């Protein structure tokens, strides 16, 4: 599938009808989502025929992109039931076979080495401090191959240091810097649209670690 084609399909997906500010719900735009998955697949072979988990899937954009690029199995996880309903509908509309689970990432009971790749656009931690690192911590425990994640460019050094030192990453690389359009979704947003610089990261978990059951 060509990048443009992927971007178009993702652009048709339904997004949050009433986004919840406390969960930092922002849609992952088709531009970023298509590029994230396209890179993961074409540069690293981390998507097709693999088991891919979308952490904090929201309306399921990243998971859908993974499925469209040939992931064998996609699982979307989110805490919010309304988002999961929309994500389900989106998967059905695109005739994609995606499993969804409702739970809190920080309290994810997950066993074994079945998930190959985790893709995510986690909350940045503007409402609940440190939640971006909670997501990364769990992702690195769950993924066998790689974790792809978006984090604010302003946190770049902190993330690299923490991932390598505390979260058992054997490597942490910024693949590219992107602009994330945050549209005027919430009442407290004064500007019509704001651009946030975000880094697309690829983390590789240490293999020697024993996964707990």
């Amino acid at each position, binding site marked *: 599938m060509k990048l443009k084609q992927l971007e178009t399909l993702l652009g048709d997906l339904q997004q949050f009808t009433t986004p919840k500010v406390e969960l930092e719900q922002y849609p992952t735009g088709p531009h970023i989502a298509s590029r994230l998955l396209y890179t993961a697949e074409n540069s690293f072979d981390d998507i097709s*025929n693999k088991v891919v988990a979308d952490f904090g899937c929201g309306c399921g954009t990243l998971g859908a992109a993974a499925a469209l690029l040939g992931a064998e199995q996609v699982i979307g996880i989110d805490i919010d039931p309304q988002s999961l309903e929309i994500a*389900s509908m989106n998967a059905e509309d695109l005739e994609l076979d995606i499993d*969804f689970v*409702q*739970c809190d990432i920080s309290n994810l*009971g997950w*066993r074994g080495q079945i998930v190959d790749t985790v893709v995510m656009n986690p909350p940045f931690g503007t409402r609940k401090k440190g939640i971006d690192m909670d997501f990364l911590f769990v992702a690195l425990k769950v993924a066998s191959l790689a974790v792809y994640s978006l984090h604010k460019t302003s946190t770049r050094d902190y993330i690299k240091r923490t991932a390598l030192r505390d979260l058992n990453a054997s490597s942490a690389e910024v693949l590219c810097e992107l602009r994330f359009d945050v549209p005027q979704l919430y009442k407290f947003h004064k500007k019509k649209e704001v651009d946030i610089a975000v880094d697309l990261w690829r983390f590789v978990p240490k293999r020697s670690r024993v996964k707990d*059951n």
Partner: protein
Amino acid sequence: MRLLTHNMLSSNIKGVTNGFPLKIQVEKVVEKQVEINHDFLRNIFPKIDWKAFSDASRIMGYDEMPEEPPEPSVLELNVEFLGKFHHALLELHLEEGALLCPETGRKFPVNKGIPNMLLLEDKV
């Protein structure tokens, strides 16, 4: 929820020492066909907890999975078996029902195929 996903989920209740596997309570099972991928099945086989998977498949109404895990050579040579393994792992969906913590018995409902693993203290 298909059985591949069930094979990953475990009870996240505090204090529980062994929360895997979750017991399945069936209300409605739906079968959805997906294309078979032999290589994927051979790769995933060693990562599956076989007992949990074969027990679960029987509860879902499918009796073809042996209690003991097959030899890997069976997956290499027996295409018929691969088809059955594929069916049990990826084509059976628990649409309505529940998953139960094996230690506490606490119910995690499954609606429209989506298990709700939220505990009261997780609620936003």
